[in-house]
C-alpha cells in the first residue's frame, strides 16, 4: 500500500512496484477488526489516555496490545491453515482439562503471538498505523492517477505487479482486482495474478513457489529495463 502511494505521488521515481495481498480501500469488515484491536488497547487501564510513556509506574497497555495482536493474527490465517496447523489438538495434554486457561494448541499460538509482539511494538504506533490503514483511500480523488498516467504515457511511469492469494480473506482478491481495475483503466502497465496458496493473508511471507516465481519473473525483467533500479514493494 505504501508502494502504491509512492507510485501515485512520484511515478517517475518508482520504475517498478510489487503490490502483494494489499488493498486500496479497507472494507467495513477490515475496519471493524481494527476497531476492536484499538478498543482493546485504549480500554486497557494502563493506556492512561496515551501518556503511559511518561508514567514510570506502568509499562503501558500490554494486555490490550497483546489482545489486539491475538485477534489480528486470526485474520492473517485461513481456516484451512489453522485447521492444518492446530486442528483441535491440545497443547500440553492428550485430553481436555476443562479449564478457562490455554488448553487448545491454537490458544497457545495466539498467546505466544500476543506476548512476543509486546517486545517489538508500541501501542500508540499500533493505533496510528491501523488508523492510517482505515483512512487509506488513494483512489477517492478522481485525479489520483493523473500523474502516474501521464508518466506512463511517455514511458517514464511505474510498472506494476499486483498479486493476491486465493485463501486470503483479510485482503481478498477483490481488493487487488480493484487496484488493477483502476490502474489498468489509467493505462498504467499492470500485471495481475491470483496465486493459489492455502495459508491465507500470511501466504505473502511464506515459501509459495508460484508466488516467488512470479515476483522473480517481474524483477528479472525490471533488472534489464532502463531505470530498473527504481523499485518499491
Amino acid at each position, binding site marked *: 500500500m505504501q508502494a502504491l502511494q509512492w507510485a501515485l505521488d512520484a511515478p517517475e521515481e518508482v520504475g517498478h512496484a510489487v503490490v502483494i495481498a494489499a488493498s486500496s480501500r479497507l472494507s467495513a469488515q477490515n475496519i471493524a477488526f481494527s476497531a476492536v484491536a484499538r478498543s482493546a488497547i485504549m480500554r486497557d487501564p494502563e493506556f492512561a489516555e496515551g501518556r503511559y510513556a511518561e508514567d514510570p509506574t506502568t509499562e503501558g497497555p500490554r494486555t490490550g496490545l497483546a489482545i489486539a495482536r491475538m485477534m489480528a493474527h486470526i485474520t492473517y490465517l485461513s481456516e484451512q491453515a489453522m485447521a492444518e496447523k492446530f486442528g483441535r489438538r491440545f497443547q500440553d495434554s492428550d485430553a481436555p482439562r476443562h479449564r478457562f486457561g490455554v488448553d487448545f494448541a491454537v490458544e497457545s499460538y495466539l498467546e505466544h503471538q500476543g506476548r512476543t509482539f509486546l517486545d517489538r511494538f508500541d501501542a500508540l504506533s499500533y493505533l496510528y498505523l491501523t488508523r492510517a490503514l482505515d483512512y487509506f483511500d488513494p483512489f477517492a480523488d478522481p485525479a489520483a492517477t493523473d500523474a502516474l498516467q501521464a508518466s506512463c504515457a511517455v514511458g517514464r511511469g511505474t510498472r506494476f505487479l499486483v498479486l493476491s492469494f486465493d485463501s486470503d480473506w483479510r485482503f481478498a482478491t477483490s481488493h487487488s482486482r480493484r487496484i488493477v481495475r483502476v490502474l*489498468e483503466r489509467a493505462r498504467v502497465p*499492470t*500485471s*495481475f495474478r491470483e496465486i493459489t496458496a492455502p495459508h491465507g493473508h500470511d501466504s505473502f511471507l511464506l515459501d509459495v513457489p508460484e508466488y516467488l516465481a512470479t515476483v522473480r519473473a517481474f524483477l528479472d*525483467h525490471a533488472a534489464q529495463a532502463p531505470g530498473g533500479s527504481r523499485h518499491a514493494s
Partner: protein
Amino acid sequence: MRPDLEVVAKLVTPRTRVLDLGCGDGQLLADLASRLGCMGTGVDRDPASLLAAIRRGVSVIELDLDSQLGEFGDASYDLVVVSQTLQAARHPDQVLREVRRIAGHGVVSVPNFGLWKHRAALALRGRMPVSAELPHPWYDTPNIHLATLTDLEDLFAAEGFTVERRVLLDAAGRAAGGLRGVGPTRLAANLMASGAVYLISG
C-alpha cells in the same frame, strides 16, 4: 513468432492500444510493442504462460474470459485480439460482445473445423478429427466450441460485426497465398483453409 500471430500482427495499426485475450507467453504483444509502438495488455490463465509474459515485460492480467471481461472499461482499447482462443471459450458469443464493448474492433484467429480433412475423418472414418491443426482427442481438448469458417461468419453477422479482412491460413498457420487461387467463395474457403484470421468491426 507463431506463424498465425505474424498474420495477426499485420492487421494491427501502429501505436494503438491492444488487448490480447489468450495472449499465451506474450509474444504478439511484445512484438507489437517493439515494432509498432503499441501499448497492450494480455489476458491468460495458464501459469507458465503468465510467467513467461511477465518475464518479457508484457503486462498480463489473470482472469476468466467467460466471466471477468467486465474488468475492462468500455472503449478502453483500440483493438481486441482473440487468437486461437474463441473456440476455447465457454460462451464465444459473449466474448464477441465484450470485444465490441471494449474496443469495437477485433482480430479473431480460429481453426477451421470445415477443412476437408476434418470432414473426411468424420464422414469416412466416423471419428472426431485429430490432426496437426486440432491435435487433441475430443475428451481432453481446450477447444470446446469448434466451428467451421461459415459457422463463425454467421456468428459475426448475428452479433452485428462486419468482416473487414479475412486471411485464410494453411496447415502451418501461414497466410495461405495458394488459396487465393481458389477464390473468395465461402464454400471453397471453408473446405480448403486450415484456419483463418478475421479483422472485424462492430
